[in-house]
Every structure is written in structure tokens, then in C-alpha cells.
């Protein structure tokens, strides 16, 4: 195996893992979010190393560019950003650690068990393995579409084999979107509205001197100013 690639791989892995550790250890949550972005970018670089270009770019576009920004946005609107004085360790931290370790083991052990023999393969070898696996799965004949992370294959898969899950997920997302809008709308109507001068005047003309908002608070209108 190529040492350069290996070196790059280890560097990227170190970046990803190190950033991941930083995410959970730093006290300042903004810094944590920034480390999270670093993790995402590291993962994307790993994808790129595996020649999964599309996946890498989507990782950057969606996770580093959008999801983490939303996280950051949400964090910035809260208090206690610096996290000074907050404790990071729970008294039963070891339970959490054991759970995490178990879950990680549950993923990594079977993977190593199954794929351990193909560790010294290059990308083209991996391609060959994929072809071989697909052929086996297809009952001995080589299928037309080899499942790799190319854009065309992805597109074909989403529009063919996985159409139903795709549509379901789309519906779910749309529902979530509508829900978010609804919540925001309700919030907006409940918020105390600041009346402009002209609106105040218009209300007063209609005889409403002290308009109440929905929470019952009085929106102040200076009665003296009525002309």
C-alpha cells in the first residue's frame, strides 16, 4: 500500500478523531461547534481519499456548510456560551463511557472480522471486490450497475430501487418544514408588535385607544397625542 496515502489517511484520521474529542471536552460551546465542523471536514476528506467524491462534497455541503451552521446559529442565540463554571463530567460518567465503548465495539468488531483480510487492497482492488461481491449477489452474472458512490449510480438508485424510502423521507422533511413554519408563525403572532406611528393613528381613528395583544399586555398608545 502506498505510504503517502497511508500517511495522509492517518493524518486525516487524527484530525477527525482529535476534533471529535475536542467537541466533547471543550467548555465553550461555540468552540465545540467549530470543532464539530472540523470533524465533518475531516470525514469529508476521508471520503475524498476513498475517491467517493460525491459523498465527500455532499458531506461538506450538508454537514459542514449547513447543519453545523444551524447548530452555531442556535448556540449563538443562547446564553452561557463560554461555559465557565459548568461541569463537564457527570458523577456516573463511566456508565456513559461503557455504553459508548460497547456501541463502538458493536460496530467495529464485525467490520474488522469481515473486512480484515482486505486491508491491504488499493482502490482498484476495492472496485474489484465490489464487482465480485455484486456478481455473487446477482447469482454469478455481473450486474449492469455496480454500486459505487458515483452521481449517476446514486441518481439511478434513488429514482429506482430506493424510490419509496426517498419519497417517504422527502415527505417527512416537508412535514418537518411545515411544522417549523407553523411554530415560527405562532411565535410571530404572539410576539408584542411594535406599532408604527401611522398604525397607532389608524387604530385610534377606529376608536381603539389601547390595543391589547393576545397575551393581554397593553400596547401603549399615548392618548394625549390624539388629534
Amino acid at each position, binding site marked *: 500500500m502506498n505510504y503517502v496515502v497511508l500517511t495522509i489517511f492517518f493524518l486525516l484520521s487524527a484530525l477527525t478523531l482529535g476534533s471529535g474529542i475536542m467537541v466533547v471536552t471543550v467548555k465553550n460551546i461555540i468552540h465545540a461547534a467549530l470543532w464539530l465542523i472540523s470533524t465533518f471536514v475531516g470525514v469529508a476528506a476521508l471520503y475524498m481519499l476513498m475517491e467517493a*467524491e460525491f459523498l465527500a462534497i455532499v458531506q461538506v455541503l450538508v454537514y459542514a456548510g*449547513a447543519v453545523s451552521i444551524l447548530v*452555531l446559529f442556535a448556540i449563538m442565540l443562547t446564553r452561557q456560551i463560554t461555559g465557565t463554571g459548568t461541569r463537564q463530567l457527570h458523577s456516573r460518567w463511566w456508565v456513559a463511557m461503557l455504553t459508548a465503548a460497547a456501541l463502538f465495539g458493536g460496530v467495529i468488531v464485525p467490520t474488522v472480522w469481515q473486512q480484515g483480510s482486505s486491508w491491504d487492497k488499493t482502490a482498484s482492488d476495492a472496485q474489484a471486490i465490489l464487482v465480485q461481491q455484486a456478481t455473487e449477489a446477482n447469482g454469478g452474472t455481473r450486474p449492469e450497475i455496480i454500486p459505487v458512490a458515483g452521481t449517476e449510480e446514486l441518481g439511478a438508485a434513488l429514482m429506482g430501487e430506493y424510490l419509496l424510502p426517498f419519497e417517504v423521507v422527502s415527505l417527512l422533511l416537508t412535514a418537518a418544514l411545515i411544522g417549523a413554519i407553523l411554530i415560527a408563525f405562532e411565535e410571530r403572532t404572539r410576539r408584542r408588535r411594535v406599532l408604527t406611528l401611522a398604525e397607532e393613528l389608524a387604530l385610534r381613528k377606529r376608536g381603539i385607544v389601547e390595543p391589547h395583544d393576545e397575551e393581554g399586555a397593553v400596547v401603549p398608545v399615548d392618548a394625549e397625542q390624539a388629534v
Partner: protein
Amino acid sequence: MTYWPVIAVDAWIGLVLVSIIKVTLILVGGSLGMMFLTWYERRAIAYMQDRRGPNRVGPQGLLQPVSEAIKTMTKEDITPLDADRVVHFLAPVVMLGATVLAFAVIPWGNLFPSSLRVGVLFIFAVTGLHTVGMLMAGWGSNNKFALLGGMRGVAQMVSYEIPLLMALLPIILLSGSLSLTDIVTRQGDWYGFGWYVFSPVGLTAFITFFIAALAEGERTPFDIPEADSEIVAGYLTEYGGMKFAVFYLSNYMTNLALCFIMASLFLGGGNGPGVTALGTVLGGLLSLVYFFIKALALFFLMVLIRGTVPRLRVDQLMGFAWKFLLPIVLVNVFSTAIWVAITRWGPQAQIFTDWFGEPASDNYLRYGVAIVVTLIINLLAVYAVMRINRRQPSDLTEEEIALGLAG
């Protein structure tokens, strides 16, 4: 002479060397290009305002950006006392990094095509990282104006990325590829004039993309994150000297990249009359010239807009993205599908073949029908969107008319 082959032993060393050279070229070229652009913009806008612009340093003031670069570099580097020092420092780095990455996939004429298969997506993925830098700058400065600017900037970027990418979809549909090189080569028909902008869908895509690109590059009328008359300089408020220069550099490089991308996607990149006829080297050089002329013309359009229009307000900016651009762009995707169907579908839709003949590049009937149909669809869409968004005076209450909301 004996050690030369030693280096060439391993191919990857050569690859790394070439990559380093390329990266250096992009960085240096990008910086020089940015310097040229600042001069270009200032001179052009000066002429629009009946002035002369910088004309003292060097011939026609061409060295003015150099003197300014020296000035900014020699300025004191100030970090506000209560700022988050690391974040404050890293923000311009992230910003510039994201910009420079975008240059990796730009095809420079026909001379240096880029190879990434998903180049178009790549550009927008990495420019999307701008938001991170912006947010870091806004938050790290510990300044209300900076925070407001950062927030505005991020909201704007996130909103406009959607119409930006959606406006791109028609081009991807037309070319069937995500690679910029492919997209450019497929516009080489019609004696070098097979640009996508000449079709109704391409034109709509171009206009919407251009508007969204103005927002993405923080140009007037969408320069809200750094709206100097409202929030001083937005997220740049607490930056000075070299850090500010890096922001500035990244901003102009982004704009340059956007111009290059628009030139490649819609205006045929390096394609033009005579490029194919002149052969690889000469034609390639000519294509480079075409490419730069197109990009600079697009930048001039940006400057012209900057010299003319005021700035939108934040809520209007968001409204414009979601209420105007997005519907139009979505309809445009649909009409692109129709265009593709009419011009290309042979066996899939026998009825088209019956009516208009076999699909071919010289079947003008098919193209004519496609143009008419898509044009009608797009115009209807624009009209409908404007109609929906424009409230009729009859819909308004008396007070609202009094408030002047009728327009």
C-alpha cells in the same frame, strides 16, 4: 543532471510537486487578480460617477492596489481585548481557504481543464464554508455590529444557496454532467456559440443565478452583511490591517470565481468563434482570452449594478430569495425538463418524433418548438410570481393604503 531522474522515480513526488506549483499559481494569480479587480472596479465606478478614480500610482493607477497592500500589511494588527482571540484570528483563514479551494476546479479556457467529476458541486460546497468564517468573525469580534453582520451574512448565504444551486440544475440537466469541463465542451457547437444562455431556460437560469451570485458574493444590492451605512462594516468591523486584507482578498476572489463559473456555465467558458479552428495551442490561448473577457464583462455588470442601485433590507432580501427567485427557479427546472424532452427524446416519446421529426442537432423545428414552449412557461411563471407577490390595492385595507403599502 544526474539527480533529475532520481526525483522522477516516484510518480507521486511529481504529482505533489505539480500540485504545489498549481496551488501557488492559483494563490498568486488569485491575489493578483483580486488586486486587478479592485482597481478595475474603482476605475469603472469612478467613470460612472464622472470621476477618474485612482490614477496616480503606476500607469493609470494600476499599482494602487499594490501600495494599498503594502499599507495594510504594515498596519498594526489589533485584536479587541474581549474578543475570542483564536476564533478572531482563524476567521479570515477559514474564509480565504474556502475561496481558494473553489479555484481548484475552474477550467481556464480550454487550456487547463479541471478533472473533478463533480466540479460544480464542489465549488458550492467549499464556498458554503464561507458562512463558517463569517460566523466566526462575527462572533469572535465580540461586537454587536459584527455579530449582527455575521448573522445577517449567514442567513443570506444559507438562503441564497438554494436558488443558486437550483438555478444550476437546468444546466446540469442540459449537459448531463456535473463536471465543469464537460459543461464547457458541450457549449462548443454552433461555431462556438452554443452557449446555454441563448436558450430561454438557460437565460432564466443565468439571470437567477446572477442575482443569487450577487448575494453570494455580497455585492450591492445584497451587501447587507457589510452594510456600511447600517452596521458599520458588519462582521469586518473589528478587523484591520492584514486580517482585513485577507477578508477583502477572499471576498474579491469569491466574486472572481463566481464570474469564472458563470462564464463557464452559461457563456460557454472559453468557447467562441475560431477556437476550434485554430488548433490546440493557439485556440487554447484564444479560448483563455475569451474566457477572461467574458468573466470581466460579468464583473463589469456587477460593478454597474453597484454603481446604480441601493441596498435591499434584510427582510426584503429574504423575501426576494424565497418568494421570487425560488419559484421561478423551480419552474425553470421543470421547463428545462420539457426542453430536454422536446429536443432529445426520440424513442422515449414517439409522439414528438411523429410531430417534429427525429431528434438531431440540426432539427431546427424541435429547437424552435422548445424555445417557444419554454419561453411561454417561464414568462408565465415570472408573471404569476409577480402577480402573487404584488398585493393589489383592492386587497388592502384603508389604513394600509394610507401607509403607502400599495406599491
